[in-house]
């Protein structure tokens, strides 16, 4: 089938798609967007998290046919106009990246959390990230990054929130 979807604000089209393919496969192999990662293919690790019509989903669990006509945002779409989103910048500043393989999914999850709740409690942060596996960092600096991003977003543009 033909899949047409808006990905990161741009219309993408893919032909001869088997409807049972995963959205992750379509994004990575057919639309040239390999930022979302495949680490388990069963929705346990969160590395492939993307927005589907504004809701974070594991792209490995969404069938290609389900994505037709939908709005998708991937990690590649988080940095508006080249500048890193505050969540991304906070990951750098907090030292929250090691191998980087789980990072795209964690970024989308953290981005979604702060969009819903600009000042989440400690428990809310842990809850929001509890679907994402990271083997490198032990999560501590990822938590620091989310807190830092929340503080900066609360301080508004130009504020460092420190």
């Amino acid at each position, binding site marked *: 089938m033909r899949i047409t979807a808006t990905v990161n604000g741009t219309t993408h089209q893919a032909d001869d798609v088997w409807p049972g393919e995963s959205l992750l496969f379509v994004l*990575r192999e057919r639309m040239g967007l390999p930022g979302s990662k495949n680490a388990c293919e069963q929705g346990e690790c969160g590395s492939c998290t993307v927005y589907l019509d504004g809701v974070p989903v594991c792209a490995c669990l969404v069938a290609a046919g389900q994505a037709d006509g939908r709005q998708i945002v991937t990690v590649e779409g988080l940095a508006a106009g080249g500048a890193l989103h505050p969540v991304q910048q906070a990951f750098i500043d907090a030292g929250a990246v*090691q191998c980087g393989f789980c990072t795209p999914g964690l970024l989308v999850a953290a981005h979604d959390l702060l969009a819903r709740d600009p000042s989440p409690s400690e428990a809310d942060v842990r809850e929001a*990230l509890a679907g994402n596996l990271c083997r490198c960092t032990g999560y501590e600096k990822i938590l620091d990054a989310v807190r830092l991003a929340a503080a900066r977003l609360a301080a508004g543009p130009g504020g460092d929130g420190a």
Partner: protein
Amino acid sequence: MTSMFGEPIARVEDDRLLRGEGAYLDDLGHDALAAAFVRSPHAHAVIRDIDVSGALDAAGLVAIYTHEDLPGRVGEPLPLLIPHPALTHGRTGYPLAAAEVNHVGEPVVMVVATDRYLAEDAAERIVVDYDPLPAVVGVDAARAAEHLVHPDVPGNVAAHLVQANGDAAAAVAAAPHRLELDLYIERSASTPLEGRGVLARWDTESRRLRIWTSTQTSTGVRAAVAAKLGLALADVDVITPDVGGGFGVKIVHPWPEEVLVPWAAMTLGRPVKFTEDRSEHFVASAHERGQRHQVRVGFDDDGRILGLDVTFWHDNGAYIPYGVIVPIITSTQLLGPYKPGAYRVEFSSLYTNTVIVTPYRGAGRPQGAFVMERTMDAIAAELDLDRTLVRERNFIQPGEMPYDHGLIFQDGRPLIYDSGDYPAALARLKGLIGWDEFEAVRRAARAEGRRVGIGLACYVEGTGVGPYEGAHVVVETSGKVRVATGLTSQGQGHQTVFAQIAADELGVPITDVEVVTGDTRAFGYAVGTFASRAAVMSGSAVALAARAARAKAIRVAAAALEASPDDMEIVDGVVRVKGDPGSGIALGTVAVLSNPLRYAFDEAARAATQFVGGDLSTPPVAEGDEPGIEGREYFSPVRSTFASGMHAAIVETDPDTAEVKVLRYCVVHDCGTLINPRIVEGQIHGGVAQGVGGALYEKMAYDETGQLQNASFMDFLMPYVSEVPERIEIDHLETPSPLNPLGIKGAGEAGVIPGSAVIAAAIEDAEGFPITSMPISPSDLFELRRRHAASGETANASQTASVNRAG
């Protein structure tokens, strides 16, 4: 310019990784054919027949290969990478099984198709007829040897090694106090988020092979694949792309797929890629940790060990390509910071019908620390002494460094500690966790009906093992500095720390430094990234190479300025007379001047062309000199450098559900001089999370037929953010190593090493009965409570009657 070395600067790697622009193996080669494998569903079986006929008309099929299709060395068993005299019965697997399979997941048939979906569809149509054989699963079954994994390996024993310093049996027998312990650690695994993967392109015109692989050693893969395929080393490039974690599993090479994919690419004349999926990673990559240990220890009234006699059995899985490195590390590193009196250790490495073993972060040390620290706690309990006091009394003292244990370490060299201050570390740890105030914490918790316990564990880690690493530093005419080193990166931040070192040594801004790792095109001589060696080995080599480039730059600039090299310095990328900012020449210009030219390719190059001038009485390039501002140096230390640390934890055990919660986790860590404290902290955090995971959650649940029952992230319980301690409290001690130019020691594995030991100690303290087997789940703990309640023991934290008193 401030010094970069020692600063917690942000990583240079992160920007593109955060934009989704990382280039991991499966992000490459979208034009490549996809490989999938038919793997053994049996732990042990004879292959009677392989019928591929049903797959021949599968859509998108390109090729099907079985063992019979593999020519010459391609089909032969994979190399035994690290031979050892004690490894008398080394066996390695075939890239595709020849006549027999020895573990679930062993590759039997390779399918190549136009994409992975189609390759798997075709693989499903292939029928393999097996004659199942009895499976040997676990250490105890391997020891019993009722069945053999390999019929020509008696007792399933691959290797047997004894090391001793003094007469431990006699010392134990003569000691006033004796204990025996039986200590077990279950299998776990590295489990990086990215599995293995390999992509190969054969250039039919230049007849060169280019391989990208998710590895911890690109030079190792290059040598192994070139040998297998009969190619000259110079005709094989191996490039390590971004790697999504390794933790040891990617140090073994070549994996079957690393031989088969390049061979198929050559055979088909088309690029071929294999990307391991998660279920394959569980059954077809590697595990570690599975060992049973018997300890006999003799000690005096003060708790000083007089003799230590350890026998253990290591489960090495179906084959043993990486040799006996893991049990050698356990046998030597279990000594930790202690002087054991007389010591004897004996191990057997045993075949089982399970997937192979490779070092997993810590590499035998978590087992060793568990053995030694459980022994220390048992001694303390036996003598009713404070657990920290027993440790203090057995410590090697700073004044005794270098300390020779009289044993041979994993690098084949003497086990000699270079430096360390264990009493100081323990004092800091006690202060950090509030060891001496804990009884008040316990009482307060008890008053609320809560059960808490405290434990500690120490370790020493041999890091920076040889034989060598090298680095190349070149100053380009743009002034940019390119650094290349051969070992690979799996997310540790090597580009950042090597850039810090090079920037500092050369006197250039870090933004002018670009680092390449793990690419044989950029640097062809290397060993690999394992054993917490990258910073020590390549860091030192980068420093030496940068110093050589700096000396050359100063010499060339001094000649141009008619100044003495001794009076020159490099500041912010400008070579100048000390204290005279007006006198300088930019490094890029110095690079131009260092390379006498016939042709001017740009404006800057004109300054170095032949009619510009210079001393006409000497050759343009002096005898013994070379053009360019470069340094190429190797670092090869006489032996490993020994980092150390101590962890303490306070846990709460739920009286009803037996759930264990880590309330506090404290780390005192000494990896010598710190290059980047933030990166070291990140390594400790990640290690501790794996240590806690290994203590409380992670184990490979094989059934008796050799089927792995939990081969998915749904069932293998790796910690999420909800399972890690709230905050890891860290204090650093810095005792520089005398064995390298930067005084550094490795930091990569440290965090994981004492995990099972410290959590076991804290649970034991909370529960009042001995913990001798890890990991421990709530059901395990619940069962232990029932057993101890039935045997009449009470939960009394001050009386941990841990073990059998030896007669």
